[in-house]
Protein backbone atom coordinates (compact mmCIF):
# COMPACT_ATOMS: atom_id res chain seq x y z
CA UNK A 1 0.00 0.00 0.00
CA UNK A 2 1.33 3.38 -0.96
CA UNK A 3 1.01 5.76 1.93
CA UNK A 4 1.64 9.45 1.77
CA UNK A 5 1.69 12.00 4.49
CA UNK A 6 -1.74 13.37 3.62
CA UNK A 7 -3.26 9.95 4.14
CA UNK A 8 -2.11 10.10 7.72
CA UNK A 9 -3.57 13.45 8.51
CA UNK A 10 -7.17 13.71 9.35
CA UNK A 11 -9.04 15.12 6.40
CA UNK A 12 -10.79 17.62 8.59
CA UNK A 13 -8.74 20.20 10.41
CA UNK A 14 -5.42 18.98 9.06
CA UNK A 15 -3.98 22.47 9.31
CA UNK A 16 -4.92 22.66 12.96
CA UNK A 17 -3.37 19.29 13.63
CA UNK A 18 -0.07 20.14 12.02
CA UNK A 19 0.20 23.39 13.93
CA UNK A 20 -0.68 21.85 17.28
CA UNK A 21 1.25 18.71 16.74
CA UNK A 22 4.85 17.93 15.78
CA UNK A 23 5.09 16.90 12.13
CA UNK A 24 7.71 14.29 12.93
CA UNK A 25 4.96 12.17 14.45
CA UNK A 26 3.25 12.02 11.10
CA UNK A 27 6.46 11.18 9.27
CA UNK A 28 7.06 8.25 11.56
CA UNK A 29 3.65 6.82 10.86
CA UNK A 30 4.17 6.48 7.15
CA UNK A 31 7.84 5.58 7.33
CA UNK A 32 7.38 1.84 7.42
CA UNK A 33 6.36 -0.34 4.50
CA UNK A 34 7.51 -3.61 5.94
CA UNK A 35 5.85 -7.00 5.78
CA UNK A 36 2.17 -7.14 6.57
CA UNK A 37 2.99 -8.42 10.03
CA UNK A 38 4.52 -5.08 10.98
CA UNK A 39 2.22 -2.93 13.07
CA UNK A 40 2.12 -0.03 15.51
CA UNK A 41 0.86 0.58 19.03
CA UNK A 42 0.79 3.51 21.42
CA UNK A 43 2.15 3.66 24.96
CA UNK A 44 1.07 6.06 27.70
CA UNK A 45 2.43 5.71 31.23
CA UNK A 46 2.86 7.15 34.73
CA UNK A 47 -0.01 9.64 34.91
CA UNK A 48 0.04 9.79 38.76
CA UNK A 49 -3.49 11.21 38.98
CA UNK A 50 -3.54 12.77 42.44
CA UNK A 51 -6.62 13.68 44.44
CA UNK A 52 -6.49 16.88 46.47
CA UNK A 53 -10.00 16.62 47.90
CA UNK A 54 -13.38 15.57 46.54
CA UNK A 55 -13.50 16.27 42.82
CA UNK A 56 -10.34 18.33 42.98
CA UNK A 57 -7.26 16.72 41.40
CA UNK A 58 -3.75 18.07 40.76
CA UNK A 59 -4.19 20.06 37.56
CA UNK A 60 -0.64 19.55 36.32
CA UNK A 61 -0.86 15.73 36.30
CA UNK A 62 -4.38 15.77 34.83
CA UNK A 63 -3.15 17.95 31.97
CA UNK A 64 -0.28 15.56 31.20
CA UNK A 65 -2.59 12.60 30.68
CA UNK A 66 -5.24 14.66 28.87
CA UNK A 67 -2.62 15.98 26.46
CA UNK A 68 -1.21 12.51 25.76
CA UNK A 69 -4.68 11.11 25.07
CA UNK A 70 -5.56 14.03 22.80
CA UNK A 71 -2.35 13.71 20.81
CA UNK A 72 -2.65 9.92 20.58
CA UNK A 73 -6.19 10.34 19.26
CA UNK A 74 -4.75 12.25 16.30
CA UNK A 75 -2.68 9.30 15.07
CA UNK A 76 -3.93 8.23 11.67
CA UNK A 77 -4.03 5.44 10.75
CA UNK A 78 -4.89 4.19 14.20
CA UNK A 79 -2.33 2.09 16.05
CA UNK A 80 -3.50 -1.48 16.60
CA UNK A 81 -3.83 -0.95 20.35
CA UNK A 82 -2.58 1.09 23.31
CA UNK A 83 -0.78 0.16 26.50
CA UNK A 84 -0.91 2.07 29.74
CA UNK A 85 2.33 1.43 31.65
CA UNK A 86 1.26 1.78 35.30
CA UNK A 87 0.93 4.44 38.03
CA UNK A 88 -2.40 5.69 36.81
CA UNK A 89 -3.02 6.87 40.40
CA UNK A 90 -0.70 8.57 42.89
CA UNK A 91 -1.99 6.90 46.06
CA UNK A 92 -4.06 4.00 44.71
CA UNK A 93 -7.39 5.59 45.68
CA UNK A 94 -10.62 4.61 43.94
CA UNK A 95 -11.23 8.29 43.17
CA UNK A 96 -7.82 8.56 41.50
CA UNK A 97 -8.19 5.36 39.49
CA UNK A 98 -11.73 6.34 38.45
CA UNK A 99 -10.62 9.82 37.41
CA UNK A 100 -7.65 8.41 35.49
CA UNK A 101 -9.84 5.83 33.75
CA UNK A 102 -12.30 8.54 32.84
CA UNK A 103 -9.56 10.50 31.05
CA UNK A 104 -8.28 7.30 29.44
CA UNK A 105 -11.81 6.44 28.26
CA UNK A 106 -11.59 9.12 25.59
CA UNK A 107 -8.60 7.36 24.02
CA UNK A 108 -9.85 5.79 20.79
CA UNK A 109 -8.85 2.15 20.52
CA UNK A 110 -8.25 -0.93 22.62
CA UNK A 111 -6.24 -0.19 25.80
CA UNK A 112 -4.47 -2.70 28.01
CA UNK A 113 -2.99 -1.87 31.41
CA UNK A 114 0.15 -2.61 33.42
CA UNK A 115 -0.13 -2.04 37.18
CA UNK A 116 2.33 0.20 39.02
CA UNK A 117 3.18 0.44 42.71
CA UNK A 118 1.11 3.64 43.08
CA UNK A 119 -1.96 1.70 41.92
CA UNK A 120 -1.30 -1.33 44.10
CA UNK A 121 -0.14 -0.74 47.66
CA UNK A 122 -3.35 0.73 49.11
CA UNK A 123 -5.58 -2.34 48.58
CA UNK A 124 -3.07 -4.72 46.95
CA UNK A 125 -4.70 -4.41 43.54
CA UNK A 126 -8.26 -5.23 44.58
CA UNK A 127 -10.00 -2.21 43.01
CA UNK A 128 -7.73 -2.39 39.96
CA UNK A 129 -8.76 -5.98 39.30
CA UNK A 130 -12.45 -5.17 39.68
CA UNK A 131 -12.26 -2.21 37.28
CA UNK A 132 -9.48 -3.09 34.85
CA UNK A 133 -8.60 -6.77 34.94
CA UNK A 134 -5.90 -9.24 35.92
CA UNK A 135 -2.49 -8.00 37.11
CA UNK A 136 -0.59 -10.28 34.76
CA UNK A 137 -1.58 -11.85 31.45
CA UNK A 138 -0.39 -12.56 27.94
CA UNK A 139 -1.83 -12.12 24.46
CA UNK A 140 -0.81 -12.62 20.85
CA UNK A 141 -1.01 -10.02 18.13
CA UNK A 142 0.06 -10.39 14.50
CA UNK A 143 2.71 -12.97 15.24
CA UNK A 144 4.14 -11.34 18.37
CA UNK A 145 3.68 -12.79 21.86
CA UNK A 146 3.04 -10.06 24.45
CA UNK A 147 3.33 -10.59 28.21
CA UNK A 148 2.25 -8.11 30.88
CA UNK A 149 3.83 -8.61 34.29
CA UNK A 150 3.11 -7.25 37.73
CA UNK A 151 6.73 -6.48 38.58
CA UNK A 152 6.09 -4.23 41.59
CA UNK A 153 5.44 -6.95 44.16
CA UNK A 154 7.79 -7.12 47.12
CA UNK A 155 8.66 -9.20 50.19
CA UNK A 156 5.62 -10.41 52.17
CA UNK A 157 7.37 -9.37 55.37
CA UNK A 158 7.24 -5.75 54.17
CA UNK A 159 3.73 -5.87 52.71
CA UNK A 160 2.19 -7.47 55.81
CA UNK A 161 4.18 -5.81 58.56
CA UNK A 162 2.19 -3.89 61.17
CA UNK A 163 1.17 -0.77 59.27
CA UNK A 164 -0.99 1.78 61.12
CA UNK A 165 -3.23 1.73 58.01
CA UNK A 166 -3.13 0.57 54.36
CA UNK A 167 -2.58 4.22 53.39
CA UNK A 168 0.62 4.27 55.48
CA UNK A 169 1.88 1.33 53.41
CA UNK A 170 0.85 3.13 50.22
CA UNK A 171 2.62 6.33 51.28
CA UNK A 172 5.77 4.39 52.18
CA UNK A 173 5.93 2.80 48.73
CA UNK A 174 4.88 5.99 46.93
CA UNK A 175 7.92 7.83 48.29
CA UNK A 176 10.59 7.01 45.70
CA UNK A 177 13.55 7.88 47.94
CA UNK A 178 12.21 6.14 51.04
CA UNK A 179 15.15 4.50 52.85
CA UNK A 180 12.57 2.18 54.48
CA UNK A 181 11.20 1.08 51.09
CA UNK A 182 11.38 -2.42 49.69
CA UNK A 183 12.68 -3.71 46.34
CA UNK A 184 10.27 -4.64 43.54
CA UNK A 185 9.99 -8.21 42.35
CA UNK A 186 7.99 -10.48 40.07
CA UNK A 187 7.89 -13.30 42.60
CA UNK A 188 7.71 -17.10 42.47
CA UNK A 189 4.05 -17.55 41.56
CA UNK A 190 4.30 -15.27 38.55
CA UNK A 191 7.65 -16.70 37.45
CA UNK A 192 6.09 -20.18 37.42
CA UNK A 193 3.20 -18.84 35.35
CA UNK A 194 5.59 -17.04 32.99
CA UNK A 195 7.68 -20.18 32.48
CA UNK A 196 4.54 -22.12 31.56
CA UNK A 197 3.23 -19.32 29.35
CA UNK A 198 6.48 -19.08 27.39
CA UNK A 199 6.83 -22.87 27.00
CA UNK A 200 3.98 -22.75 24.47
CA UNK A 201 5.71 -20.10 22.37
CA UNK A 202 7.95 -20.93 19.44
CA UNK A 203 11.54 -19.73 19.97
CA UNK A 204 11.44 -17.73 16.75
CA UNK A 205 8.29 -15.85 17.79
CA UNK A 206 9.13 -12.31 18.91
CA UNK A 207 8.32 -11.77 22.59
CA UNK A 208 7.57 -8.37 24.13
CA UNK A 209 7.26 -8.02 27.91
CA UNK A 210 5.50 -5.06 29.52
CA UNK A 211 6.37 -4.31 33.13
CA UNK A 212 6.19 -1.28 35.37
CA UNK A 213 9.69 -1.53 36.85
CA UNK A 214 12.81 -2.17 34.75
CA UNK A 215 13.48 -5.91 34.44
CA UNK A 216 17.13 -4.95 34.91
CA UNK A 217 19.07 -3.50 37.82
CA UNK A 218 19.90 0.19 37.49
CA UNK A 219 19.49 1.92 40.87
CA UNK A 220 18.13 0.18 43.93
CA UNK A 221 17.46 3.22 46.19
CA UNK A 222 14.75 4.45 43.80
CA UNK A 223 13.60 1.00 42.72
CA UNK A 224 14.89 1.47 39.18
CA UNK A 225 15.29 -2.19 39.83
CA UNK A 226 13.60 -5.60 39.95
CA UNK A 227 15.02 -7.93 42.55
CA UNK A 228 14.50 -11.10 40.48
CA UNK A 229 15.23 -9.47 37.09
CA UNK A 230 17.78 -12.17 36.20
CA UNK A 231 15.18 -14.90 36.61
CA UNK A 232 12.84 -13.19 34.12
CA UNK A 233 15.77 -12.55 31.78
CA UNK A 234 16.67 -16.26 31.95
CA UNK A 235 13.18 -17.20 30.78
CA UNK A 236 13.51 -14.79 27.83
CA UNK A 237 16.98 -15.99 26.89
CA UNK A 238 15.93 -18.82 24.54
CA UNK A 239 14.01 -16.45 22.25
CA UNK A 240 15.55 -15.01 19.12
CA UNK A 241 13.85 -11.66 19.66
CA UNK A 242 12.92 -10.43 23.11
CA UNK A 243 12.06 -6.90 24.23
CA UNK A 244 11.11 -5.44 27.60
CA UNK A 245 9.21 -2.14 27.79
CA UNK A 246 8.91 -0.56 31.24
CA UNK A 247 7.63 2.59 32.96
CA UNK A 248 8.37 3.81 36.50
CA UNK A 249 11.57 5.71 35.70
CA UNK A 250 9.94 8.74 33.98
CA UNK A 251 12.87 9.06 31.57
CA UNK A 252 14.43 7.81 28.37
CA UNK A 253 16.47 4.67 29.00
CA UNK A 254 17.45 1.82 26.73
CA UNK A 255 19.78 -1.11 26.94
CA UNK A 256 20.72 -4.45 25.44
CA UNK A 257 21.50 -7.47 27.63
CA UNK A 258 22.27 -10.53 25.50
CA UNK A 259 19.25 -11.11 23.28
CA UNK A 260 16.98 -8.80 25.30
CA UNK A 261 16.34 -5.19 24.30
CA UNK A 262 15.10 -2.79 26.99
CA UNK A 263 13.18 0.43 26.50
CA UNK A 264 11.77 2.75 29.16
CA UNK A 265 8.82 5.04 28.51
CA UNK A 266 8.21 8.62 29.60
CA UNK A 267 5.71 9.74 32.22
CA UNK A 268 2.86 12.07 31.36
CA UNK A 269 3.10 13.57 34.88
CA UNK A 270 6.69 14.69 35.61
CA UNK A 271 10.27 13.64 34.78
CA UNK A 272 12.64 12.05 37.25
CA UNK A 273 16.35 12.84 37.61
CA UNK A 274 18.77 10.28 36.25
CA UNK A 275 20.23 8.32 39.18
CA UNK A 276 23.70 9.72 38.51
CA UNK A 277 22.30 13.12 39.50
CA UNK A 278 22.20 11.84 43.08
CA UNK A 279 25.82 12.19 44.13
CA UNK A 280 25.67 10.10 47.33
CA UNK A 281 25.10 6.65 45.79
CA UNK A 282 26.47 4.72 42.82
CA UNK A 283 24.16 3.67 39.99
CA UNK A 284 24.37 1.48 36.89
CA UNK A 285 22.82 3.50 34.08
CA UNK A 286 23.12 1.61 30.78
CA UNK A 287 26.01 3.11 28.81
CA UNK A 288 23.97 2.84 25.64
CA UNK A 289 21.38 5.35 26.87
CA UNK A 290 21.59 8.88 25.49
CA UNK A 291 19.81 10.85 28.19
CA UNK A 292 16.72 12.94 27.62
CA UNK A 293 17.16 16.70 27.73
CA UNK A 294 17.34 18.20 31.20
CA UNK A 295 13.90 19.43 32.16
CA UNK A 296 12.98 23.10 32.14
CA UNK A 297 10.52 23.35 35.04
CA UNK A 298 9.08 26.57 33.65
CA UNK A 299 7.47 24.55 30.85
CA UNK A 300 5.08 22.35 32.73
CA UNK A 301 5.09 19.45 30.27
CA UNK A 302 8.81 19.58 29.52
CA UNK A 303 10.57 16.20 29.82
CA UNK A 304 7.24 14.36 29.93
CA UNK A 305 5.57 12.60 27.03
CA UNK A 306 4.19 9.42 25.53
CA UNK A 307 5.27 6.88 22.93
CA UNK A 308 4.39 5.70 19.47
CA UNK A 309 5.87 2.25 18.84
CA UNK A 310 6.47 0.37 15.63
CA UNK A 311 6.94 -3.40 15.62
CA UNK A 312 9.19 -4.06 12.68
CA UNK A 313 10.23 -7.62 12.03
CA UNK A 314 9.55 -8.38 15.67
CA UNK A 315 11.74 -5.58 17.07
CA UNK A 316 10.70 -2.28 18.60
CA UNK A 317 11.18 1.21 17.20
CA UNK A 318 10.41 3.59 20.05
CA UNK A 319 9.25 7.06 19.10
CA UNK A 320 9.12 9.41 22.06
CA UNK A 321 6.54 12.20 21.70
CA UNK A 322 7.95 15.03 23.81
CA UNK A 323 5.97 18.26 24.22
CA UNK A 324 8.15 21.42 24.14
CA UNK A 325 11.05 19.27 22.94
CA UNK A 326 12.31 17.61 19.79
CA UNK A 327 10.88 14.12 19.59
CA UNK A 328 13.32 11.23 19.92
CA UNK A 329 13.45 7.87 18.17
CA UNK A 330 15.31 4.83 19.47
CA UNK A 331 15.37 2.06 16.90
CA UNK A 332 16.80 -1.46 16.99
CA UNK A 333 19.83 -1.65 14.73
CA UNK A 334 20.05 -5.19 13.39
CA UNK A 335 23.71 -4.68 12.35
CA UNK A 336 24.93 -3.74 15.83
CA UNK A 337 22.26 -5.80 17.60
CA UNK A 338 21.42 -2.83 19.84
CA UNK A 339 18.80 -0.13 20.16
CA UNK A 340 20.16 3.23 19.02
CA UNK A 341 18.96 6.80 18.96
CA UNK A 342 18.58 7.80 15.31
CA UNK A 343 19.99 11.31 15.86
CA UNK A 344 22.11 11.41 19.00
CA UNK A 345 23.76 8.00 19.45
CA UNK A 346 27.31 8.97 18.46
CA UNK A 347 29.24 10.89 21.12
CA UNK A 348 29.88 13.68 18.61
CA UNK A 349 26.18 14.19 17.91
CA UNK A 350 25.02 14.70 21.48
CA UNK A 351 23.85 18.11 22.69
CA UNK A 352 24.53 19.98 25.99
CA UNK A 353 21.03 19.45 27.53
CA UNK A 354 21.70 15.67 27.45
CA UNK A 355 24.46 16.05 30.06
CA UNK A 356 23.10 15.42 33.55
CA UNK A 357 25.10 15.94 36.72
Amino acid at each position, binding site marked *: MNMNRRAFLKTTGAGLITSAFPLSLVKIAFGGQGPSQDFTFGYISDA*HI*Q*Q*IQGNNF*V*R*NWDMGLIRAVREANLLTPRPDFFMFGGDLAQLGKKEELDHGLEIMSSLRGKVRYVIGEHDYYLDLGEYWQSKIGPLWYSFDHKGVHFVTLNSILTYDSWVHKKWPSPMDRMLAMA*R*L*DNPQGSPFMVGGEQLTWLKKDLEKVNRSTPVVVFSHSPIQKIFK*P*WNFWTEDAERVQALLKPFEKATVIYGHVHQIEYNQIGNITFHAVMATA*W*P*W*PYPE*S*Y*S*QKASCMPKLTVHMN*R*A*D*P*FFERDATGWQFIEMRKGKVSMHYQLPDNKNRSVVFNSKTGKPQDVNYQGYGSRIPPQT*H*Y
Partner: protein
Amino acid sequence: MRKNRKLHGVSLVILMASVLLAISFSLQAGDFTQEDLERWDKEFMTVVMKGDKLFHSALGTNKVSCDQCHPNAANTHPETYPKFQQQIGRVVSLFEMVNWCIQNPLEGDPLPADDPKMAALLSYMTYERRGVPLAPGKH
Protein backbone atom coordinates in the same frame (compact mmCIF):
# COMPACT_ATOMS: atom_id res chain seq x y z
CA MET B 1 36.35 58.78 103.40
CA ARG B 2 33.94 59.58 100.68
CA LYS B 3 36.84 60.10 98.28
CA ASN B 4 38.35 56.81 99.35
CA ARG B 5 35.10 54.99 98.80
CA LYS B 6 34.85 56.50 95.36
CA LEU B 7 38.37 55.34 94.57
CA HIS B 8 37.54 51.87 95.79
CA GLY B 9 34.50 51.94 93.55
CA VAL B 10 36.53 52.94 90.53
CA SER B 11 39.14 50.27 91.10
CA LEU B 12 36.40 47.68 91.54
CA VAL B 13 34.94 48.70 88.20
CA ILE B 14 38.38 48.52 86.56
CA LEU B 15 39.00 45.13 88.13
CA MET B 16 35.68 43.77 86.97
CA ALA B 17 36.21 45.19 83.50
CA SER B 18 39.64 43.55 83.20
CA VAL B 19 38.22 40.21 84.39
CA LEU B 20 35.43 40.43 81.81
CA LEU B 21 37.95 41.41 79.15
CA ALA B 22 40.15 38.47 80.08
CA ILE B 23 37.16 36.11 79.86
CA SER B 24 36.03 37.50 76.55
CA PHE B 25 39.57 37.24 75.14
CA SER B 26 39.71 33.63 76.22
CA LEU B 27 36.45 33.03 74.22
CA GLN B 28 37.86 34.50 71.03
CA ALA B 29 38.22 32.56 67.76
CA GLY B 30 40.02 29.26 67.84
CA ASP B 31 39.00 28.31 71.30
CA PHE B 32 36.34 25.66 70.97
CA THR B 33 36.15 22.11 72.13
CA GLN B 34 35.29 18.74 70.63
CA GLU B 35 31.98 19.02 72.50
CA ASP B 36 31.27 22.31 70.72
CA LEU B 37 31.90 20.69 67.36
CA GLU B 38 29.60 17.82 68.16
CA ARG B 39 26.89 20.18 69.38
CA TRP B 40 27.10 22.39 66.29
CA ASP B 41 26.94 19.36 64.03
CA LYS B 42 23.95 18.07 65.94
CA GLU B 43 22.23 21.44 65.62
CA PHE B 44 22.83 21.40 61.87
CA MET B 45 21.64 17.82 61.40
CA THR B 46 18.48 18.55 63.37
CA VAL B 47 17.68 21.26 60.83
CA VAL B 48 18.62 18.94 57.94
CA MET B 49 16.15 16.36 59.30
CA LYS B 50 13.50 19.05 59.62
CA GLY B 51 14.19 20.01 55.99
CA ASP B 52 13.96 16.34 54.96
CA LYS B 53 10.46 16.19 56.49
CA LEU B 54 9.38 19.44 54.83
CA PHE B 55 10.79 18.34 51.48
CA HIS B 56 8.61 15.22 51.70
CA SER B 57 5.41 16.99 52.75
CA ALA B 58 2.80 19.22 51.11
CA LEU B 59 4.15 22.79 51.35
CA GLY B 60 1.57 24.29 49.02
CA THR B 61 -2.15 23.83 48.53
CA ASN B 62 -2.33 20.82 46.18
CA LYS B 63 -0.67 18.05 48.24
CA VAL B 64 2.28 17.89 45.84
CA SER B 65 5.67 17.62 47.60
CA CYS B 66 9.17 18.60 46.48
CA ASP B 67 10.41 15.00 46.42
CA GLN B 68 7.84 14.00 43.81
CA CYS B 69 10.11 15.59 41.19
CA HIS B 70 13.35 15.67 43.22
CA PRO B 71 14.00 12.35 45.01
CA ASN B 72 16.89 12.88 47.46
CA ALA B 73 16.77 16.52 46.32
CA ALA B 74 18.45 15.41 43.08
CA ASN B 75 18.41 17.92 40.21
CA THR B 76 18.17 20.90 42.57
CA HIS B 77 21.89 21.69 42.18
CA PRO B 78 22.55 23.88 45.25
CA GLU B 79 26.24 23.96 44.23
CA THR B 80 25.43 26.04 41.13
CA TYR B 81 23.71 28.96 42.90
CA PRO B 82 23.71 31.92 42.72
CA LYS B 83 23.34 31.70 38.97
CA PHE B 84 21.72 33.34 36.00
CA GLN B 85 18.26 31.80 35.85
CA GLN B 86 17.40 32.35 32.22
CA GLN B 87 13.65 31.94 32.78
CA ILE B 88 13.67 34.71 35.42
CA GLY B 89 16.17 36.84 33.53
CA ARG B 90 18.60 37.62 36.35
CA VAL B 91 21.02 36.07 38.82
CA VAL B 92 19.09 34.42 41.65
CA SER B 93 19.86 32.62 44.91
CA LEU B 94 18.59 29.12 45.51
CA PHE B 95 15.84 30.27 47.89
CA GLU B 96 14.21 32.09 45.00
CA MET B 97 13.99 28.89 42.97
CA VAL B 98 12.65 27.02 46.01
CA ASN B 99 9.94 29.67 46.25
CA TRP B 100 9.26 29.41 42.53
CA CYS B 101 8.59 25.69 43.01
CA ILE B 102 6.40 26.32 46.07
CA GLN B 103 4.36 28.88 44.12
CA ASN B 104 4.03 26.96 40.84
CA PRO B 105 4.05 23.14 40.96
CA LEU B 106 3.01 23.23 44.65
CA GLU B 107 0.55 26.12 44.21
CA GLY B 108 1.48 27.67 47.57
CA ASP B 109 2.71 30.92 49.11
CA PRO B 110 6.41 31.80 49.05
CA LEU B 111 8.46 31.66 52.27
CA PRO B 112 10.47 34.65 53.54
CA ALA B 113 14.18 34.18 52.80
CA ASP B 114 14.96 33.98 56.53
CA ASP B 115 12.07 31.68 57.44
CA PRO B 116 13.39 28.76 59.51
CA LYS B 117 11.53 26.47 57.09
CA MET B 118 13.53 27.89 54.20
CA ALA B 119 16.77 27.41 56.15
CA ALA B 120 15.71 23.79 56.77
CA LEU B 121 14.87 23.12 53.10
CA LEU B 122 18.18 24.63 51.94
CA SER B 123 20.08 22.66 54.60
CA TYR B 124 18.53 19.38 53.45
CA MET B 125 19.09 20.08 49.75
CA THR B 126 22.71 21.12 50.32
CA TYR B 127 23.39 18.18 52.63
CA GLU B 128 22.15 15.74 49.96
CA ARG B 129 24.69 17.36 47.61
CA ARG B 130 27.61 17.33 50.08
CA GLY B 131 31.06 16.73 48.65
CA VAL B 132 30.22 18.13 45.21
CA PRO B 133 32.55 21.06 44.32
CA LEU B 134 31.01 24.52 44.17
CA ALA B 135 30.16 25.54 40.62
CA PRO B 136 28.54 28.99 40.95
CA GLY B 137 26.76 30.12 37.81
CA LYS B 138 26.83 26.69 36.15
CA HIS B 139 23.75 25.82 34.13
